[in-house]
């Protein structure tokens, strides 16, 4: 095939355009004649002896073909038409794309047309390609022109289709209000691109190359769009199936999402729609939402708008992760001037869980800005007390509520709550849950004044709510926690679920002190304690993001197996019972008759399957252990089955627990060990399980062992009803779990406190310790079934399943709600340790006296 010079190719295009105009042809006729004549010229050119066809040769061929009549070329399109093409194909798309990128207008109302940089490149490319095709591109090779036209056509076709559902509204708005050009412009641009592509195709020297180029360009864009939007479209479709009322369809949808899904799309669906933070969506979401009505008109059913609540459930079931454990998605890429068309250029966030019992959505612009933890451990009483001070910062122009679930140390309780109002610390009032919740809702949600509320959410888990964190302001709170040591360790509290982020670079100032030397467990780089006066202390400033949900503990070595007797003065006790003594007694717990181990089949347990299988096979051979994998249903298995099981998604554990409880009840003396990760959503009602636990003569123990930290709704529900025993904290998972299971299977000794009250300290045995001992007594009583447990909890300033803590802004508010705030002097605090003992103080006073006397004596002499 002969090569052509660019000038010759351009000349041929000009000739052909002039020729069809001369013959008065248009459309298909014009196209056919162009192709026929071009083919003819090329056949003629092939027989010429030169390798390169230039303009001179072409002119000769044209003269020959046209019988000597070759007219001078005249422009194919009139200037007015060219102007229209420039306006709709170049100027308008460029202006609209830039406007959207700057303002995020469409992103804040309908959907984000420019969610990624690549989308932006594609959109910006259209006007540039069109401009090129209208000018210099006409002299380019046919294939290159075709590729450019294909690229522009596919991009504008995609966006034209996206905006097509808005066409009636856009036309209406244009006619009656003079608005709507923005939403209309992609469709106008598509028409312009089509005409430009057609024009260049007609003028192309080698139209077959133009066509193949066009296919290449369009194919490349379609492939790119498929790669970018395909996962989202698939996810939206399967999400709609997962939300189906038909059980089989819903299960199939979840199964498909477990196989493949776009986490980004699923996460977006959690934040948009009927109960999300915005009504705007992304491209795949708009494809369903925007096209739902038009598609239904022609009998097609697309996925429609996302149901945020259901999407959050599906997110967990598909990924195994709580949706709010991830950074919230940017629902619009935003613009250079702001993010979406929201309040004060902010992306508006609607928090429908305000004042509720759920942590719910992660709010943007609400961060934990500062954190400080001060802790003191008294090894004599085997008790620790820590104060966690948190400062929340709100950088948006809306007031927001900070919510989080805090996992306390095993058997720990919140014993102090402080809120800073205008820089002044205010202590909480402790009372029944209903009373403190009513006060919080009244003051926080209705009156929008400053309160903070802490209530129990589950076993050793509290829900902390602070409202309002002021717009562009901060809110500072402090939570005091009292808890016993667990096997020589004192575990620090951690956040398992939160609706706020962590400010970048934020640090956690950690201070720990104790009356004995200690080491840190669970955090690399933390040095052990140093001698500090009579005691020991350690401090560090650490990355807050890393520490917030980390299992961090203080470990003491060489503690006696049975602690010595201790006593304290109980400031809350009535006269005659002011002194409280505790001795620990060993009790033997016999081996369980049958052990049923329920293993959560969720993806979060992926790493544990093989290890557990090995442990059960090698370390407990021949033991009466039944294994059940909770995979939304009940999968009874053996160690081989466990080793080969594929953990995926987020699995409902309720059915498996129910089966395990039934099995444990059969024959009596059975126990259930539940090894699990997060159960972030309440997947099934749980009433059947509660009924099974409430009824019957034998109530088996269910040990809740958290293998992977995270929120657990099922555990919360069972814990509130008192049916769950917290298993060991797994500092070193395998050995700790092995030790625990061995204890269950072979019997174990446990320490339980024996309390004695006295009128005076005379006659009390053992060491005098701090008054946290009294709280420890109250904590035990509050867990019992005593009728006055709520009163005891309130008196000893404890947050328990029946009591909560609330800080209100003014004394009037407290009085109005029948609450008494704690007096600062009665609130627990970190002792000024190392506190010199009484004897040391006497000794120091004596030395000072002696020195003074000697000085005086010296002076007299």
């Amino acid at each position, binding site marked *: *095939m002969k090569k052509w010079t660019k000038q010759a190719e351009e000349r041929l295009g000009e000739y052909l355009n002039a*020729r069809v105009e001369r*013959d008065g*042809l248009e459309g298909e*006729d014009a196209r*056919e*004649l162009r*192709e*026929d*004549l*071009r*083919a*003819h010229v*090329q*056949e003629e050119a*092939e027989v010429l002896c030169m390798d390169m066809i230039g303009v001179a040769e072409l002119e000769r061929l044209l003269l*020959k*073909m*046209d*019988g*000597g*009549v070759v007219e001078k070329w005249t422009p194919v399109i009139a200037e007015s038409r060219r102007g229209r093409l420039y306006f709709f194909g170049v100027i308008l798309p460029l202006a609209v794309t830039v406007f959207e990128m700057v303002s995020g207008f469409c992103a804040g109302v309908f959907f984000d047309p420019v969610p990624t940089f690549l989308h932006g490149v594609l959109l910006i490319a259209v006007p540039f390609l069109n401009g090129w095709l209208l000018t210099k591109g006409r002299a380019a090779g046919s294939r290159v022109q075709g590729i450019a036209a294909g690229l522009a056509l596919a991009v504008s076709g995609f966006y034209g289709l996206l905006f097509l559902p808005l066409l009636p509204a856009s036309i209406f708005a244009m006619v009656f209000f003079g608005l709507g050009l923005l939403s209309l412009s992609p469709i106008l641009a598509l028409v312009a691109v089509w005409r430009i592509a057609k024009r260049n195709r007609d003028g192309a020297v*080698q*139209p*077959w190359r133009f066509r193949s180029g066009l296919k290449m360009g369009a194919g490349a864009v379609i492939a790119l769009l498929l790669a970018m939007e395909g996962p989202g479209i698939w996810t939206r479709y399967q999400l709609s199936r997962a939300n189906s009322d038909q059980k089989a369809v819903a299960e199939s949808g979840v199964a498909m999402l477990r196989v493949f899904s776009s986490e980004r799309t699923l996460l977006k669906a959690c934040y948009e729609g009927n109960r999300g933070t915005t009504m705007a969506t992304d491209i795949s979401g708009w494809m369903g939402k925007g096209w739902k009505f038009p598609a239904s008109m022609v009998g097609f059913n697309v996925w429609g708008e996302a149901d945020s609540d259901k999407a959050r459930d599906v997110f967990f079931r598909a990924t195994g992760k709580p949706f709010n454990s991830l950074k919230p998605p940017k629902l619009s890429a935003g613009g250079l001037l702001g993010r979406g068309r929201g309040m004060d250029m902010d992306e508006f966030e609607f928090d429908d869980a305000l004042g509720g019992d759920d942590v719910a959505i992660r709010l943007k612009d609400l961060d934990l800005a500062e954190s400080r933890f001060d802790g003191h451990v008294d090894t004599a009483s085997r008790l620790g007390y820590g104060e966690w001070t948190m400062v929340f910062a709100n950088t948006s122009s809306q007031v927001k509520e900070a919510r989080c679930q805090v996992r306390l140390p095993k058997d720990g309780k919140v014993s102090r709550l402080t809120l800073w109002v205008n820089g002044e610390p205010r202590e909480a009032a402790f009372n029944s849950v209903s009373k403190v919740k009513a006060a919080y809702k009244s003051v926080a949600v209705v009156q929008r004044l400053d309160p903070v509320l802490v209530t129990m959410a589950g076993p050793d888990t509290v829900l902390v709510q602070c409202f309002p964190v002021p717009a562009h302001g901060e809110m500072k709170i402090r939570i005091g926690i009292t808890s016993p040591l667990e096997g020589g360790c004192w575990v620090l509290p951690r956040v398992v679920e939160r609706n706020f982020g962590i400010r970048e670079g934020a640090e956690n100032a950690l201070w720990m002190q104790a009356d004995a030397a200690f080491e840190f467990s669970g955090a690399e780089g933390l040095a052990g304690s140093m001698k500090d006066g009579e005691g020991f202390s350690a401090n560090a400033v650490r990355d807050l993001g890393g520490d917030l949900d980390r299992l961090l503990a203080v470990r003491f070595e060489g503690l006696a197996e049975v602690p010595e007797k201790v006593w304290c003065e109980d400031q809350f006790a009535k006269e005659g019972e002011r002194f409280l003594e505790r001795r620990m007694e060993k009790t033997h717990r016999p081996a369980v008759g049958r052990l049923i181990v329920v293993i959560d089949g969720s993806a979060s347990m992926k790493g544990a399957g093989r290890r557990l299988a090995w442990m059960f096979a090698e370390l407990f051979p021949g033991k009466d252990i039944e294994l059940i994998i909770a995979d939304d249903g009940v999968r009874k298995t053996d160690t081989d089955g466990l080793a080969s099981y594929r953990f995926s998604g987020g699995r409902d554990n309720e059915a498996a627990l129910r089966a395990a409880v039934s099995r444990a009840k059969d024959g009596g003396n059975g126990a259930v060990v539940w090894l699990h990760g997060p159960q972030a959503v309440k997947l099934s009602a749980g009433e059947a399980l509660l009924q099974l636990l409430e009824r019957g003569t034998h109530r088996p123990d269910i040990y809740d062992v958290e293998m992977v930290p995270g929120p657990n709704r099922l555990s919360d529900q069972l814990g509130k009803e008192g049916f769950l025993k917290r298993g060991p904290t797994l500092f070193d998972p395998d050995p700790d779990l092995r030790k625990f299971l061995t204890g269950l299977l072979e019997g174990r000794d446990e320490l339980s406190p024996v309390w004695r009250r006295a009128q005076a300290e005379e006659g009390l045995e053992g060491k005098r310790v701090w008054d946290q001992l009294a709280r420890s007594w109250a904590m035990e009583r509050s867990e019992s079934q005593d009728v006055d447990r709520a009163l005891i909890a309130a008196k000893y300033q404890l947050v328990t399943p029946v009591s909560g803590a609330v800080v209100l802004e003014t004394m009037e508010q407290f009085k109005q709600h029948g609450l008494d705030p704690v007096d600062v002097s009665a609130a627990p605090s970190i002792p000024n340790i190392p506190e010199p003992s009484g004897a040391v103080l006497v000794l120091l006073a004596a030395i000072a006296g002696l020195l003074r006397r000697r000085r005086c004596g010296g002076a007299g002499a």
Partner: protein
Amino acid sequence: MQDSLFEVNDGFSELYENWTVQMRKGVLDLCILTALLRGEWYGYALVKALVAIPGVGVSEGSIYPLLSRLRKQGLVTTRLEESTEGPARKYYSLTDLGRKLAAEMTGHFQTMVKGMGALGESGFMSGGEEGAKSKTKKES
């Protein structure tokens, strides 16, 4: 002799040209259909063959619109055959209607030419009156 006639008489030239244009218009369709009666033709080859017919006197470029018209009239059909060396080749062939029409037209044209030949053989000068009479009779 013809050239000399053109040279000496502009009116003669105009008359002759008008006549050839009219004749080409009528005959060109017939030429195409006749060619295609023998089978399928590649477009380029067909155009070359047509312009090679003495007296047709049309430019190569003007035949393509004619072929396009015949296609739209349903007399010819085209097919494209991909070519590795250049553009796809367009092949023309007759439709059933085209074939029928081609047969009719060819028959008519041959009859006409034969008649014309016979007219020449009989000669208007030698048997003019008789011939003229017989024509008048036929018409009546």
